[in-house]
Structure formats: structure tokens, C-alpha cells
């Protein structure tokens, strides 16, 4: 164990893992939606750090750009627009917590346990020798070109459908409803 601590990369890991764990706990326990979203930013940011430690630079920056740059902003917009209670709100959880905690604990035993039994104390021996971004790019446009093209359709469908669904209709019933809202 003392060997484990002698490796500087493990100290970095420990700090990042602690940040990730604490902020993940806060994401699911915070009584404030905005805090939850911001803790998710912290968890994702620390995860990006973890990816840098594993010398997966490209994924790390994709995570920062896509998640922290776009997804979380989307979340915050969603929270603002739906006027979800942004202040502390004790009634954020609806079901009894004990059974849910038990289920989550069981899930942890299963998932962590299977990792432990399968990989024991095997080491990541080539930590510094990362996959180059060049290789990722090449692979993405060659071996994985079909999923790469298909995922663009996933995004297009989400974009078109999302706008259609979320935009306000001009139907008479809808207009009446908004008029009432304005008056109220």
C-alpha cells in the first residue's frame, strides 16, 4: 500500500476521485436544482482531469467542451425556463430514501465487485503512452465512419424534434392558455 502512495499519479487520482465522489453525492442529495447542476460541472471537470491523468487528452477536452460548455448551459436554461424551484426545497425527493439507498448500495457491490474479481490488482502500465489524437481522428473517419455518420443523424433528429416539441404552438387553445398565464 505504501508503494501505491509512492506513485505521484495516485495522489492526483486520489484528489480528483475525492472531488468527483463528493460532488456526485451532492448532485443527488442537494435540495437545490442549480447546486445539483453546478456540482455536476465539478464532477465532470474532475473527470476530465482524470482523463488527462490517463493521457486521454482528446476525450478530456471533448468532455469539457461538450458537457461543461454546452450540456450544463442547456441544463441551466432548462432550470430557469421551467422555473423549477431554485431555492432550497426540502421536498426534492419523493420516495423513501432508505430502499433507494439500499438499491444503490447493491448496485455498487455488484458493479465494483465484478471489477475487483475480474482485474484484481492489475496495473495500468502504460499510463504516459497515450493514444494520439491523430489515431483517434483516423479511426473515427475510417473504421468507425458509419457510427460517426449515423450519430450526426441522431443529433439532427434530436435538434429538429426538440425544437418542434419545445416551441410554442400558434394553435388557438395554446394562445388562450398563454393569455390566461399573462393575466394571472
Amino acid at each position, binding site marked *: 500500500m505504501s*508503494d501505491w502512495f509512492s*506513485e*505521484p*499519479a*495516485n495522489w492526483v487520482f486520489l484528489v480528483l*476521485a475525492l472531488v*468527483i465522489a463528493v460532488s*456526485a453525492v451532492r*448532485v*443527488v442529495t442537494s435540495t437545490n436544482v442549480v447546486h445539483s*447542476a453546478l456540482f*455536476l460541472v465539478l464532477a465532470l471537470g474532475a473527470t476530465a*482531469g*482524470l482523463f*488527462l491523468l*490517463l*493521457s*486521454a487528452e482528446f*476525450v478530456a477536452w*471533448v*468532455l469539457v467542451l*461538450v458537457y461543461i460548455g454546452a*450540456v450544463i448551459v*442547456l*441544463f441551466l436554461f*432548462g432550470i430557469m425556463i*421551467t422555473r*423549477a424551484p431554485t431555492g432550497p426545497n426540502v421536498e*426534492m*425527493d*419523493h420516495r423513501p*430514501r432508505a*430502499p433507494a439507498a439500499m*438499491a*444503490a448500495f447493491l*448496485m*455498487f457491490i455488484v*458493479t*465494483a465487485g465484478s*471489477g475487483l474479481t475480474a482485474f484484481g490488482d*492489475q*496495473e*495500468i502500465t*502504460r*499510463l*504516459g*503512452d*497515450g*493514444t494520439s489524437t491523430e*489515431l*483517434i481522428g483516423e*479511426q473515427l473517419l475510417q*473504421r*468507425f465512419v458509419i457510427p460517426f455518420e449515423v*450519430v450526426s443523424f441522431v*443529433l439532427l433528429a434530436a435538434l429538429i*424534434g426538440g*425544437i418542434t*416539441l*419545445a416551441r410554442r404552438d400558434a394553435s388557438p387553445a395554446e394562445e388562450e392558455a398563454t393569455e390566461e398565464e399573462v393575466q394571472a
Partner: protein
Amino acid sequence: MPLLRRRKPRKKRCRHDSKELEARGLELRIPEGGELVLLNQFLILGALLFSLGVYGLLVRRNAVMVLLSIELMLNAVNVNLVAFESFLRNAGAGGQIFAIFVITVAAAEVGIGLAIILLIFRNRTSANVDELDLMKW
């Protein structure tokens, strides 16, 4: 960050070494750095994130919060994939590419989810999951 920056030159040297070793038909093994970093420390962190996501999913009322919990679960998958990729280091880079795809799909999912939540909110001014009771679960 300084520590991470320090890694850069080391990385280059490693790559050089590995090429030389490969040329001589020897096993690829980088002598310094990461000797004692276990794969399982990442997998356990992934399991923890996944389980916390499950907890949040079961317990949260607000649909936005449920979505945040699901993001935690997807992030756990990314941690696993990238850790496995550095563990395996086979020529394919499959793990990192998989992680990029997961991030992309998750972004699309958030967009769809928020559109649906927005729609529901407009119709009933609430985004709570347990008020969806028109039809029994």
C-alpha cells in the same frame, strides 16, 4: 496541473522507447510512470458514480434532477471506457472513441429530455415526475 504538464516530455520519450522496443521485437512495457496505478481504482470510482446515479434516479422528484442523475451514470461509463483503454492500449483506440460517442449521444439525450420537460411544464406548470399520474405507472 503542473504535474500534468510535467508529463508531456516524458510521454514523448516513452513513445520513442516503445518504437525502439517494437523494432527489436520486445514486449511493450514502459519502464517508468504509472507502475502502481491500478485499473480497479478507476473501475470502483465508475461503480460509485453509477450507483449514485441509480440512487438519484430512484429518489428524485424533479425531472431535471432525474436527468442529472442519468448524466452521472453515463459519466461512469466514460470513466470505465477510458480506463479500460489505457489498460489495454491496443492499437484500435476503441475505448476513447466509444467514450466520445457516449458523450455525443448523451448531449442529444439532454436536448431531447429538456424539450420534453419544457413541453410538459408548459402544459401543467410542473416538472415533477410523481405528478405524472394521468395513467397509473
